[in-house]
């Protein structure tokens, strides 16, 4: 869908490149996560791919066509979901939607979308009266208005309660199942783990890792099993996963002791993020 080769970008008046020769691709029907600490170049990369930033070096191909040669009509194929609310606050939700919808060649079923995110009953309220969560959900509807082929989403569940975050994540997965492609920028490792087919970690404008969440967890994890059990007092033991079924000490524990916890050494995306980027998640 998008092929990025040796992409470089420097902001005017900046001394160094923000994006330093990155190359990757994401395929049709894939959810591709783009993760990294603040200032790593995630948003810049997304803005370049959505034609907001110009003057980059390297090549970006959209469906085999040079992005620079694609006119503004490309936005009939692309939906962009922003992290912050981007609505006209003194217009109602429906007036906002009507304005944007008519500027596109195709349009999605607005009633279905608004009902799905729970905003149909509030469609005639001014956006200024909406809560932050409602505005974020309206952002998501705005991104899907043109029935896009590719969705660029920036922190789509940020600021949502678990129930509404679940709805948005389900809609992202349904979008993928219907053949759509998603480029997801997020700090929420749990979302990335749950949604993404592949993820890339970007640090200081360079891509450090690209793989599926499962492969990354296997590569960065340890092939061990950690058992916590009671034997008078609570004890811990660690066993190599290879040949575990023949390990007498392990078998003795699970047969004869009271187990408290048992974990495999598979790591989490949170840990991989910290290892790869060198920064903690809250930084």
């Amino acid at each position, binding site marked *: 869908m998008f092929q990025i080769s040796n992409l470089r970008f420097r902001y005017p008046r900046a001394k160094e490149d923000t994006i330093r020769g990155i190359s990757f691709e994401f395929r049709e029907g894939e959810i591709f996560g783009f993760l990294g600490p603040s200032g790593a170049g995630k948003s810049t990369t997304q803005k370049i791919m959505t034609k907001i*930033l110009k003057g980059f070096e390297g090549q970006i191909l959209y469906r085999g066509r040079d992005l620079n040669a694609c006119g503004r009509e490309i936005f009939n194929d692309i939906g962009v979901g922003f992290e912050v609310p981007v609505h006209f606050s*003194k*217009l109602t939700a429906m007036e906002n939607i009507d304005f944007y919808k008519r500027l596109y060649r195709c349009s999605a079923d607005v009633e279905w979308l608004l009902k799905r995110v729970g905003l149909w009953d509030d469609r005639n309220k001014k956006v200024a009266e909406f809560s932050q969560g409602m505005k974020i959900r309206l952002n998501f509807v705005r991104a899907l208005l043109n029935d896009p082929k590719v969705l660029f989403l920036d922190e789509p569940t940020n600021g949502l309660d678990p129930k509404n975050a679940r709805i948005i994540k389900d809609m992202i997965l349904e979008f993928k199942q219907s053949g759509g492609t998603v480029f997801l920028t997020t700090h929420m490792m749990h979302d990335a783990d749950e949604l993404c087919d592949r993820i890339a970690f970007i640090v200081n404008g360079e891509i450090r890792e690209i793989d599926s969440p499962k492969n990354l967890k296997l590569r960065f994890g340890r092939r061990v099993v950690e058992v916590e059990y009671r034997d008078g007092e609570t004890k811990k033991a660690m066993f190599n996963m290879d040949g575990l079924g023949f390990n007498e000490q392990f078998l003795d524990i699970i047969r004869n002791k009271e187990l408290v916890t048992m974990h495999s050494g598979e790591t989490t995306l949170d840990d991989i993020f910290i290892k790869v980027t060198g920064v903690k998640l809250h930084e």
Partner: protein
Amino acid sequence: MNRLLLLYAGEVTRMRKYGITLASLGVAVLWVLLLHFSELQDISGIFPLVLFVDTTLMSVLLVGVSMTFEKQENSIKSMLVLPISKDDYLLSKSLSTVTSSITTLLLLLVYGFLMKGLRVNIVGMFGAVLLVSFVFSQLGVLLTYSSKDFTSLLTSMFKFTLLLTIPTVLQFLKIFEADWFGYLQYLNPTKNALVLLLAPAIAVEAKDLLIAIIYLAVLGMLSFIAARRAFDGYAMKESGC
């Protein structure tokens, strides 16, 4: 429907919803009251001066307010990912401002004809308001590009008034009539706007009128090209970079 027309319709709706249209109409009513209480029987001389303030300063302000709201609410980000050209975006801003100026002109003309027996060349007046409002709305776009927020925009407008508008009013009222000042004023867009607006109401020198038309037409084109060129930088800045 054509995307420019859709954008224009959206602009007009937002101007109404955000109270910009109401404020503009309020100012137009103030002009009517000013004309009414001026006790002048022949308002042909002052009529263009009232329009001059409205089509120059108000055009800059209306565009500035509209774009400042877009910046404050981040809706500019949403506009940047639409299948519209920057020409459509910029022209829709100007067209909605021109509409507001034409509305004010209509209100003033109705009052002038009914209450004061105003005699002006209507076609000429509409043409003048259209051109002046378009040029100054584009200047408003350029001023807004360089303004961080609404306060900064008002500061720029204050400088604009001090340096460009007040000298023209002083010249019109014959308070300052030095030759060098008269020549210098040919470079001032507000002086040329006033000449164009005076022409349908009172006699102006043909040479001055010709200079004003050419000056404003060229300035309109140049300011549109400049607004177009600077748009990408503005888009980059407002997208949060």
